[in-house]
């Protein structure tokens, strides 16, 4: 172990509870609220740092095996914080706040040795920076994992094809329509048309928040594919605002039956297939 590591180790090993307290005090007020748990995390990080230093890990290279336990506890820390929905900035602030107590301890040790102090401070600062950087990176990848999983969930729950009547299928579209989702919907709808032999499909867009040119293009493609297969298509659930947007964008929906509500569309579908709806009284 070299001198700098020894010095850092001494600085970190001095009075653990005191170090943790001053670390905690160095945190900005907003980050102090987590209280006890952040003290626990601080102890864990300190243990990881000491292990790494004792194993002779260079402060500049955090990806060496010597720092493996530290990296593990960092990853656990940022994953826990990401899951709690904290900001990436707060998480890295928490790590960076270690600098203050560390520098104080080093300053006391090297009071009579400015050159040594400089070297030790540089090692300390680069070590803490690397640790903070690693925290942010893991924090972000944890967040991205969460986002990816949620996207997958969304895609899976996206759009069931339901049979409304003999020969009438409906797809209630919910959420933002992008290429991959439209593709999925189109495929499952066309497949159900073939397997059920339905001649009419209703696409309900009540749950689609906005319709822009891209969404309209996706819809038109679906309608054309349905027509090519020999079935007919009705688009329902067009809200007044969306009707205005469609006209303002100059999207041509001519040749496509459009209805305001799913009920209207079902009525048209029944009429086309020769049914008549009447009350019994």
């Amino acid at each position, binding site marked *: 172990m070299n001198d700098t590591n020894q010095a850092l180790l001494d600085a970190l090993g001095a009075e653990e509870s005191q170090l943790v307290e001053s670390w905690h005090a160095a945190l900005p007020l907003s980050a102090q609220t987590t209280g006890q748990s952040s003290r626990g995390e601080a102890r864990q990080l300190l243990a990881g740092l000491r292990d790494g230093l004792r194993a002779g890990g260079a402060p500049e290279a955090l990806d060496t095996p010597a720092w493996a336990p530290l990296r593990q506890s960092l990853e656990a820390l940022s994953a826990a914080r990401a899951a709690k929905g904290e900001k990436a900035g707060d998480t890295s602030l928490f790590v960076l706040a270690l600098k203050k107590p560390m520098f104080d301890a080093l300053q006391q040790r090297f009071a009579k040795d400015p050159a040594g102090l400089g070297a030790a401070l540089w090692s300390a600062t680069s070590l803490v920076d690397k640790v903070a950087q690693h925290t942010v990176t893991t924090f972000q990848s944890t967040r991205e994992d969460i986002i990816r999983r949620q996207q997958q969930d969304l895609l899976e729950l996206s759009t069931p094809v339901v049979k409304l009547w003999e020969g009438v299928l409906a797809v209630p579209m919910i959420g933002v329509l992008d290429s991959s989702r439209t593709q999925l919907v*189109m*495929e499952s709808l*066309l*497949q159900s*048309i*073939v397997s059920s*032999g339905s*001649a009419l499909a209703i696409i309900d867009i009540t749950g689609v928040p906005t319709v822009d040119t891209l969404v309209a293009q996706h819809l038109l*493609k679906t309608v*054309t*594919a*349905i*027509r*090519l*297969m*020999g*079935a007919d298509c009705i688009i329902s659930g067009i809200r007044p605002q969306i009707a205005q947007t469609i006209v303002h964008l100059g999207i041509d929906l001519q040749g496509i039956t459009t209805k305001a509500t799913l009920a209207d569309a079902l009525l048209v579908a029944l009429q086309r297939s020769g049914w008549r709806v009447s009350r019994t009284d």
Partner: protein
Amino acid sequence: MERIPILRMGQTLLVTIQIDMQDQTAMALQEDLAAKIAETGANGVMIDISALEIVDSFVGRMLSSISGIARILSAVTVVVGMQPAVAITLVELGLSLPGVRTALNVERGMQLLDTVRREKFLDR
């Protein structure tokens, strides 16, 4: 080169495509069909493509032009049984086949032909 047989059922010509279409086959079918419509005086053409799994833009255009040719010879064309994958491919190729009538299966296609014939008869 393979030729696709054209069957005659009364006033309707029935074409079932069961092989992967090559450009030459498509051209031959187009010519044969035009000749057959003129020869028999058929007023309906049904093209069953339920066994067709691969299409390219040429085949797509062929369907379109067959329909156009038949219309000039005063016959109605119905394309039936298009597979979902084929429909998606044609749409992605930008071929929406305007002017081509479609139906889910042969039975529905026959019904459609009957309806169109009746309308035409009323027009005259």
